[in-house]
């Protein structure tokens, strides 16, 4: 019997709390009934209004209504039934390791292939009928949108420069078009945007471009003239109509969503502003007569996400939006192929933070992994090793640090830090226990190195920076903080807040990432990446003058890019991104498997292991994802006034 069946058995066999003695008597006394008049059925009342004879006039009227109204309606019902019968799963696609069900994958125009980027930085395409998977390109930027050309002959994707652990992975190098048949690529743009759509003539690209303020502007680029038109400074999901005469996108103003419909040549622009909720991800139906979007509205005690449709005729919206599919909260929609299949993913991601006891002398696991909490994201150990602090967004959207006991996971307190709006990977608790250093973003879009007072939650921006830094680490004397940014390693003096770069990569594909102070406090260790892989951990003195190799592994598949140095500096623990946690001695010894967490589930992966200050445990994140990919037949009625 598997675990699910056991759980179901236990739940089904749950004992029943007995009803108290006397409850039945009490309820009996409460029975107050009033007679409800017996009513004739509605049909009988209609056809026999007098209660005696059938009214022939009414029979004739009913027949007329049936022919004029009900028959056309039944046609709609047939369509509805057909719609549900043609929803089908793409099991072959579900098996692919797409990252977190990200909405960047796309169905080919003929619906026969599904393209997306994997966690291994590959562009893959999957045959939707056989599940056969083909790698088309390497070194692409995972989790970014891919876009098919209108004829399905090419796929546009972002090539990668850098590693996603650095700068949140937003370092694409170029937008390429890959020929689906020959596999040859050509450069579409050198300074690429986040592609969303590609015009049917192949000349225009729609997408989002991140501004310095961190806003995604909706832009349209002419690939021939390189002319760039900003559609909205802060916009989302720009899409061409199938005939590329029009485009749609969404903006948000004063907590209201505005759906825009523009002519591509700029001669007309209309807006739909009355939707009582949020509009997300508008998509054009294949015949160009509808824009379908995910609408979110607040219900009495919860949010409702439904799929809505709004008619479009030429450069006008017609009528009001209508809900077409309810409860789509668990769905993420990709795109609509020209043959009428709407592709989407449904599923969920679970995970949590675990600890693993470790023998500090040997570096080997000393017991089973233990879950500290469900969810959780950024975390760091207190200097005494008794607590772990997590960064979490609370229900109202405010950020907070949650302090849990490292021994049993019990929440000890929650420290609300409304000032901070986002924290980048890798935070660190000061050696004196007073402060937590983290990289992130605060209100008024301030970015940099922040210090949070553990006792009070006071926030201080120690070093303002253009981008949020990552992987912060305190020196053992508490006077310096090291961090990673722009592929390099920096240190900042806690007294004056002045940052200084100590290690800067020289080669194009080289990255120095995830700095960790070595125990002597004189140098900072960091992962040295060439491309996506890391086979060496280096250390540079804080004056930036001397660099040495701390650890080297022969097998490059044992990727050390996410690592942590033990407090005695004798070992590093690292997580290549699968179910295994590895440990490598820094004296040149062979790396060994510290833990395999595959027992926690079929699709689990471990990441971001951190040593406890005493070296007797590690904390690590566990992710698990279960997603299914589906297509839905075009369920919208066909209209003559198509936009094609």
């Amino acid at each position, binding site marked *: 019997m598997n*675990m*699910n069946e056991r*759980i*179901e*058995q*236990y*739940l*089904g*066999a*749950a*004992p*029943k*709390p*007995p*009803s*108290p003695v006397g*409850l*039945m008597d*009490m*309820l*009996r006394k*409460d*029975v*107050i*009934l*009033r*007679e*409800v008049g*017996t009513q004739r059925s509605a049909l009988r009342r209609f056809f026999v209004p007098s209660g005696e004879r059938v009214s022939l006039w009414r029979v004739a009227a009913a027949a007329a209504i049936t022919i004029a109204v009900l028959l056309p309606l039944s046609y709609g019902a047939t369509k509805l039934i057909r719609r549900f019968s043609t929803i089908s799963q793409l099991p072959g696609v579900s098996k692919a390791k797409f990252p977190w069900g990200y909405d960047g994958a796309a169905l080919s125009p003929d619906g026969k292939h599904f393209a997306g980027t994997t966690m291994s930085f590959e562009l893959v395409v999957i045959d939707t009928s056989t599940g056969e998977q083909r790698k088309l390109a390497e070194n692409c930027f995972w989790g970014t949108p891919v876009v098919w050309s209108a004829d399905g002959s090419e796929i546009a994707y972002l090539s990668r420069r850098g590693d996603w652990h650095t700068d949140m992975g937003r370092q694409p190098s170029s937008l390429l078009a890959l020929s689906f048949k020959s596999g040859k690529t050509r450069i579409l743009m050198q300074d690429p945007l986040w592609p969303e759509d590609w015009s049917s003539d192949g000349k225009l690209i729609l997408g989002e471009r991140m501004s310095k303020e961190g806003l995604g502007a909706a832009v349209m680029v002419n690939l021939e003239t390189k002319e760039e038109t900003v559609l909205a400074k802060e916009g989302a999901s720009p899409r061409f109509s199938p005939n590329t005469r029009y485009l749609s996108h969404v903006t948000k103003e004063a907590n209201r969503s505005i759906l825009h419909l523009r002519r591509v040549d700029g001669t007309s622009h209309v807006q739909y502003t009355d939707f009582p909720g949020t509009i997300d991800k508008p998509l054009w139906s294949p015949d160009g007569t509808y824009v379908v979007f995910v609408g979110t509205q607040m219900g009495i*005690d*919860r949010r409702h996400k439904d799929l809505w449709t709004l008619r479009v005729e030429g450069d006008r919206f017609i009528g009001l939006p209508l809900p077409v599919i*309810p*409860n789509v909260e*668990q769905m993420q929609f990709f795109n609509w192929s020209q043959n009428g299949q709407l592709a989407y993913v*449904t599923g*969920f991601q*679970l995970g*949590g933070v675990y600890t*693993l006891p470790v023998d500090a002398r040997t570096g*080997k*696991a*000393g*017991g*089973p*992994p*233990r*879950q500290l909490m*469900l969810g959780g994201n950024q975390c760091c150990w207190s200097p005494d090793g008794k607590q772990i602090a997590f960064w979490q967004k609370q229900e109202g959207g405010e950020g907070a640090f949650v302090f849990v006991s490292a021994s049993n996971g019990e929440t000890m307190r929650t420290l609300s830090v409304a000032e901070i709006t986002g924290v980048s990977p890798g935070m660190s608790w000061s050696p004196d226990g007073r402060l937590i250093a983290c990289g992130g973003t605060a209100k008024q879009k301030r970015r940099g190195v922040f210090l949070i007072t553990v006792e009070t939650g006071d926030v201080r921006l120690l070093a303002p920076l253009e981008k949020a830094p990552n992987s912060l680490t305190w020196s053992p004397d508490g006077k310096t903080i090291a961090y990673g940014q722009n592929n390099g390693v920096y240190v900042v003096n806690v007294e004056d807040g002045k940052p200084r770069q100590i290690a800067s990569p020289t080669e194009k594909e080289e990255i120095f990432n995830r700095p960790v102070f070595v125990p002597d406090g004189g140098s900072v260790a960091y992962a040295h990446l060439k491309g996506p892989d890391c086979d060496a951990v280096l250390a540079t003195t804080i004056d930036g003058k001397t660099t040495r190799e701390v650890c080297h592994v022969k097998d490059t598949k044992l990727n050390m890019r996410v690592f942590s140095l033990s407090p005695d500096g004798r070992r590093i623990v690292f997580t290549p991104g699968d179910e295994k*946690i590895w440990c490598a001695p820094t004296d040149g010894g062979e790396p*060994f*498997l*510290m*833990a*395999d*967490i595959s*027992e*926690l*589930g079929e699709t689990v992966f471990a990441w971001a292991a951190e040593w406890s200050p005493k070296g007797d445990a590690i904390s690590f994140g566990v992710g*698990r994802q*279960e997603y299914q990919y589906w297509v839905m037949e075009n369920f919208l009625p066909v209209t003559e006034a198509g936009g094609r």
Partner: protein
Amino acid sequence: MDRRIKDLCKRAKSADKNAACELLEIYHADIFAYLRRLCGNRQDAEDLTQQTFFKVWSSLGSFTGRSEFSTWLYRIAHNTYIDWRRGRPDGARNYPDPWWGECVDTDPGPLADAADRQMAQRLYEAVDQLDDDQKHVVHLHYYQQLSIRQTARVLNVATSTIKYRLREALGILRTTLRVGEHEPDVARATPVAKGETT
């Protein structure tokens, strides 16, 4: 709908108190158990059961028989519980007593073994920690043995939503149990290095 229940409903609608009492006899224990498990204490569960049936009798006229009587009844009980929770000073959260402690184990069935009972109790505790959406589905479908369709009707959501929530809840419960399950069996669960033997 069961012919007998249908008949009792019809008679109760015609102000037949005996029929209403028969319906009470059939359903009151289930409704009490449902509310007891949800609201976390006996006294509140009694009050809520009373309120539920009061609403049932006062709105019996609006029950058209399109759904099953039991589904309609659970829907009223569910809404009564939701209203009660909204009105509580501690807002959305509740702190339930372990309801399983009150149950006399006359027929332990598959939970005859002490270890099984312990695990089941851990599971019930974990169910109490689930999100509301997941919790309601578990209570109705597993504890009250309603079908997925009935559960969907009670909660007024699509059956696909119920399936999704059940799968989500089972996933969380599985993770919770699996982690707890490893604790006593250190030797088996200790990860070993590649090539090593225990």
